[in-house]
């Protein structure tokens, strides 16, 4: 018996093949991580049934799953826009926080007696969302400009700017914007500036609708418009794009700003829909998990939206599992990570197949026949 790996003549792209690969990867990942439950006296099957039922099968739980998935979607969409255009941006954490800050600026200016106090709430919410997106766009636009104009290292610059954003928020919530009390956070926003809850009995807010609408617009933009095609061309092969008369630098700048705007909008949605105030530790890695969701979704808008929901469900269900079985929280993270690794590893099977054959029967040696 000999096992060898062979390239497929055509990659598997059909719908059922994708579903089968994802299904097998999920089961294998859960099984492997489930082994870790046993030393704690917890049953993997019971644990996972808690996880799944809390994340996806109860209305309240599924609401939380979608709430967790919303910012992931925004970041994943931003990743798709930036990376497709050849701009390897990793600064979504920063953009998200800056967007959250922008929304908070508007909300804090709308408290009683402040400049925006007499505006109608709908205008204020729109303004907060837009301002969050604009600040996010500027934040990533700086990186884009440095990349395009000076050929700066966008990965390094973006990672450093993430720190800048994290500590800027920290400064604001412990300093000028701090509310009286123990916690480093701003005051709670006006009730009418919260994003409305859309499903009774859950905490699901209107942010998910914004995310889905943005996703629909992006599908059209990326696949059906000249601008989307030119961004793609600039990302795939700059020489060929320029040959085709495409101004690759402009397209890359636009992609950078759009990606930052999406993450900024995500940040604004999170503060207006979930926390209702600006606080330290608001993002906590969402800006990176969204990139994972984009990769899991094979860089497609629809795929990454589904991956975001899946990932959100893993977080919400994992927390429930930890509470009910007494497993340490680190195990929940291991479960998530193992599943993601299996999903990514199974991507290999789209382009390759594993062949198990006895060496004598292999088609390359015919002398023995």
């Amino acid at each position: 018996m000999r096992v060898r790996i062979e390239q497929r003549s055509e990659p598997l792209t059909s719908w059922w093949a994708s579903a089968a690969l994802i299904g097998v990867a999920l089961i294998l990942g859960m099984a492997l991580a489930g082994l870790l439950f046993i030393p704690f006296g917890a049953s993997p099957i019971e644990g996972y049934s808690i996880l799944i039922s809390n994340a996806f099968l109860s209305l309240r739980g599924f609401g939380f799953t979608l709430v967790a998935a919303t910012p992931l979607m925004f970041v994943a969409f931003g990743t798709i826009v930036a990376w497709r255009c050849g701009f390897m941006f990793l600064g979504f954490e920063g953009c998200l926080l800056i967007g959250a800050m922008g929304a908070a600026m508007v909300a804090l200016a709308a408290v009683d007696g402040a400049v925006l106090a007499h505006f109608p709430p709908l205008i204020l919410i729109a303004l907060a969302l837009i301002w969050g997106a604009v600040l996010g766009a500027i934040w990533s636009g700086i990186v884009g400009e440095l990349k395009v104009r000076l050929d700066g290292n966008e990965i390094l610059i973006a990672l450093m700017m993430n720190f800048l954003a994290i500590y800027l928020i920290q400064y604001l919530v412990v300093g000028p914007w701090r509310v009286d009390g123990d916690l480093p956070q701003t005051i709670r926003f006006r009730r009418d500036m919260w994003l409305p809850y859309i499903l009774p009995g859950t905490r699901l807010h209107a942010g998910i609708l914004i995310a889905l609408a943005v996703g629909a617009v992006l599908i059209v933009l990326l696949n059906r418009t000249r601008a989307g095609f030119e961004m793609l061309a600039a990302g795939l092969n700059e020489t060929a794009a320029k040959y085709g008369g495409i101004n690759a630098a402009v397209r890359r700048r636009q992609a950078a700003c759009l990606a930052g705007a999406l993450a900024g909008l995500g940040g604004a949605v999170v503060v207006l829909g979930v926390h209702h105030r600006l606080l330290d530790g608001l993002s906590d890695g969402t800006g990176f998990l969204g990139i994972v969701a984009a990769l899991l979704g094979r860089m497609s808008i629809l795929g990454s939206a589904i991956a975001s929901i899946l990932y959100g469900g893993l977080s919400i269900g994992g927390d429930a599992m930890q509470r009910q079985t007494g497993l340490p929280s680190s195990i929940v993270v291991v479960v998530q990570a193992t599943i993601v690794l299996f999903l990514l590893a199974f991507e290999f099977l789209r382009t390759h197949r594993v062949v198990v054959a006895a060496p004598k029967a292999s088609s390359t040696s015919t002398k023995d026949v």
Partner: protein
Amino acid sequence: MQSQPLMKMLGVTKRFGRSVLANDDINLDLYAGEVHALLGENGAGKSTLMNILYGLYAPTEGQIFMEGHEVQFSSPSDAIAAGLGMIHQEFMLIGPFTVAENLVMGTTDLPDGVDGVATAREKIRTLSAEFGLDVDPDAFIEELSVGERQRVEILKLLFRDAKVLILDEPTAVLTPLEIERFFEVLKQLRDNGRAIVIVTHKMQEVMDISDRVSVMRAGRMIETLFTKTTTPEALIRSMVGRDVDSHLERSATKERQRGLEAISLVVPRRDGEKLPPPVSFAVFHGEILGIAGVDGNGQTELFETIMGLRSAVDGAITLDKRQLTKSTCHERRELGISYIPPDRRGTGSLTSLSIENNILLGSGAEFSPKGMIDRSKLRQAADGLIERFGVRTPNAEFIAGSLSGGNLQKVILGREVARDPKVLLIEQPTRGLDVGAIELIWAEIMAQRNSGVPILMASTELEEVLALSDRIAVMFEGEIMGIVHRDEATKDLLGAMMVGNTLESLRQAEAAA
């Protein structure tokens, strides 16, 4: 010719995987003292066969005999030990070392009588004199011309006492003068009892130099003939499998009207090189101005400057008297300049996208009137192009990078001519393509010319420039050496210009003689 062949392949078959049959039951023999041409289109299996002979691939079936004994090569070093040598298209020489050092380097077993660079030098001198190679053992490789480097490669094989020399497309990088010189060397080698295989798809070469010719098609050996007994037409027929119509319909140009013009244009060169002198020329409507020259003599820089991919240092470019020196590439495309670049995979296409999306590349508003792409119109255009040019593909959604070179070139050409260009720039229209594809592309270029489009075309293939052009300019180190009418152009004249003689100086020399 002796009775026993120096090398004999018997029933050699090579499969890749289950479905690809690269060589099907091939018989080939080589005798000492012959030049044997191996002729075939791309994908006919020539390279696979030679790689089997050189020990790079193991044959699936079949036997190889050297001087009557069966041999099995598991690597090139086995082949070299048995007296085989191969020269690839890219030379494997190290620039900063001398000829002698290069020859000693990497040889685990030095040939008899050589124990170091000093004795190697001696042997190089002897061999060089014996075969008329004229190579100085102490010359540094980086100071040698391409033709000289090729002779060093040949010397490398002789140094290791190769009896069978395999040369893969040996003339691709040479100027006509160098080719002549190279053929002299081959004759010398043949007369000294070596067997030489040249792998080629150029008919002229086969007729000029080979004693016998073997034609391969689609993995099979079609025939082996004495070159004297055949004709180029018969060889093309057996190589392609059908008759090829190489006749080009050249209609008379009606009125001479200037289309594209370069006026004292100074073209930027690569970093660090000094600027070439300004060039001036005009391409008239209904004319092909061909640019001959060895690769890398500023042709691409000139074309990219005209296309707006580089900015001119000085001078002007006009199209139908209209200034476009300052226009962007996009604006020039809108004005009707089409360009078929030499690097069809790196520049001319987006290889990971579909044929359909590649037709969108460089298009104007016709497929996206208000910024939205009209997919159905685009699909129609793609299907139309595929049908008109006979692109071999399952459908328009097929990934362009998976097309063969000829089919991809048809897509690029089709896209660029579909936009009714006001001027057509073409570089290396048929580099590396099959006879069938060349036939079609030449005919289309000629049809564009006959319909009145001014065409500027550069090719390193002299045959191509001579076949298509109305006038021929020769470029050398960024400079135009002269422009001659097609009736005055001869290979000798162009060849002399290609190595740096101006037309003027050649005419003067002729007048003086």
